[in-house]
């Protein structure tokens, strides 16, 4: 698979190449991630979009080896964080990357915090572990962090337990924990999915402002294209453990190329649409990845499927400047002469 092709002067802080992760289950091997490559520059926000089971979370958790092994196994690829391959780091070195250089925010703030420790304890833990802070230094920093993520009266709230916080406030605490050690990369795994819409908007605003303030690279996993449109610089669409389309956010929304992306965009209800319109959906189920894809994984659900799709998995290629897509088909307005000949 070719390296994605959007050019920029800044070197990426995180560069993933050909990542492959499988799960060994009683029903055989599940190929969850099948050669994912992407990069992230400092200060950049990349949205990762896809249905449940498309491999978004598994990809990101593989980077930090957060998946329990077994059943998971990372079978190939590399993940360079400023030149060091995370997949080949010693466990002790990896530990200091986790929380120290890469922060992770999980989906469900209700269960992601330990119920029996105070927020202060859970927040100062990485500070003392990675930055070697004393108890009082860590406490002072924890107060700063809580006010950074917009929690009122942080001194008092440090002594509170997670159950004394609302869902949105807990997610702010999770973000504060992820940001504690000034990470270079923040990975947010559907951080707003479990929250209601107004709280979601608050969290999105918070992340936008934090990003400008702190200048770290952010990977934002979601299945909500509307969320991505509001905050991301670039978008990666994943399907069947593969990146199927990748472009700047404006480009992707203006000219989606992959039939899956196009279908996803069509499922979005529009504000000016008439009420009688039924919500659109993509027919069929996401693939059950019992074997590595030899054909296009989207073919069974694709409206533009043809013989080549079933014979050969399309590679991710630059179809337009800064716009990568893994599909044999091209939308009509962009079909070039050579591709017409190839299809014929």
């Amino acid at each position, binding site marked *: 698979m070719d390296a994605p092709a959007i050019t920029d002067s800044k070197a990426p802080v995180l560069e993933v190449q050909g990542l492959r992760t499988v799960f060994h289950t009683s029903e055989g091997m599940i190929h969850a991630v099948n050669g994912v490559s992407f990069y992230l520059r400092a200060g950049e926000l990349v949205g990762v979009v896809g249905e449940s089971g498309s491999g978004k979370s598994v990809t990101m958790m593989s980077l930090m080896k957060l998946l329990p092994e077994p059943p998971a196994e990372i079978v190939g690829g590399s993940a360079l964080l400023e030149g060091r391959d995370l997949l080949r780091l010693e466990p002790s070195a990896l530990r200091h990357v986790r929380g120290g250089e890469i922060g992770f925010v999980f989906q469900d703030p209700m269960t992601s915090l330990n119920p029996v420790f105070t927020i202060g304890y859970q927040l100062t833990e990485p500070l003392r572990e990675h930055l070697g802070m004393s108890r009082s230094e860590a406490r002072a920093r924890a107060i700063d962090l809580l006010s950074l993520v917009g929690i009122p009266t942080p001194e008092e709230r440090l002594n509170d337990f997670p159950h004394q916080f609302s869902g949105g406030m807990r997610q702010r605490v999770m973000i504060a924990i992820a940001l*504690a050690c000034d990470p270079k990369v923040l990975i947010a795994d559907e951080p707003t999915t479990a929250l209601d819409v107004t709280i979601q908007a608050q969290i999105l605003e918070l992340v936008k402002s934090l990003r400008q303030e702190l200048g770290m690279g952010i990977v934002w996993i979601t299945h909500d294209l509307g969320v991505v449109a509001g905050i991301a610089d670039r978008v990666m669409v994943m399907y069947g453990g593969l990146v199927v389309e990748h472009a700047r956010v404006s480009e992707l929304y203006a000219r989606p190329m992959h039939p899956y992306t196009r279908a996803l965009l069509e499922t979005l209800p529009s504000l000016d649409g008439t009420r009688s319109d039924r919500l659109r959906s993509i027919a069929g189920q996401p693939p059950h990845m019992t074997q590595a894809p030899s054909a296009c994984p989207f073919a069974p659900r694709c409206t533009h499927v043809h013989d080549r799709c079933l014979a050969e998995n399309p590679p991710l290629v630059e179809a337009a400047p800064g716009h990568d897509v893994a599909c044999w088909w091209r939308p009509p307005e962009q079909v070039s002469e050579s591709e017409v000949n190839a299809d014929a």
Partner: protein
Amino acid sequence: MFRYTIRRLLFAIPTLLVISFIIFALLDLAPGDPTSQLPINIPAEVRQKIREALGLGEPFYVRYGLWMQQFFVNEPLNILEQWFGVTIGDSENRLRVLSWSTRSPVVDLIVERMPQTLWVVGMAYVVGIAIALPVGVISAYRQYSIFDQAGTFITMIGFSIPPFFSGVLVIVIFSVNLGWFPSIYDTTHVVTDWDSFLKQINQMILPVMVLALQITAQLTRFMRASMLDNLNQDYVRTARAKGMSEQAVVLLHVLRNSMIPVITVIALAVPSIFGGAIITEQIFKVNGIGALLIGGIEAGDLPLVQTLTFIFAVLIVLFNLVADILYGILDPRIRYD
């Protein structure tokens, strides 16, 4: 928490009154005669006199009232006098709960037997906890490993083999065939120096082994299940994502949560230590509380059995409260006020 504790303690009073009445009434209604073990040639009228001398001539409510007074007033006063060396009121003529068969105060009998029971059953409990907690933690952390499989096998044995079998089994193996440990626990043995301490340890090993096997089996399964419940929680992943060491993740984050139900179970089972281990005490001839209770039942010694049973009831009510309070202390989500 303080108000809750006071409320629970006050609530325990009617509970214990009802329990005391039920115990007294049930044992009083039970068939049996305190003179039945006396020689058969004692005439009927003498037997009747003996019964009356034991207080059986009085109606039920009088006997119950006197017993309650003896249990809740006279005996505590007596204990206070012994502890502080003072005299409160007319201590010479104060009526104590007397055993029918030995004519000595029941409380004195219990005080005499308690050390043996605490040594053997208490030690078995301590040994059981000390083995069960680490084994449970490791079994859960390395689920389905050889260690876990072996642990499961041994705990299944501990669960399924009753002490009257395992007790005899270890006697046959370790006393009869190997001759390592005595089969009879010498209650009169006094620890004075190193050698007598070693002898005490030596004679405790077999009964402690039998009891600890049972306790370990139950507690290991419980600890393992509680660890497994928590190991897959999201907060464990968060702790790992924060870069905490595996040791901190398992022994701090997971264990702290897993211990909540386990400590409650441990606290709830403490009364059973004082209750002794009736069967194991019989097998190894440990002259403890269990043996005292069985002897009292066989001799129809109602005051002894009633008092012992009621003390167990008090301990059970008390340790239920202790377990609830511990739960509130350990789990910040639980607030009683």
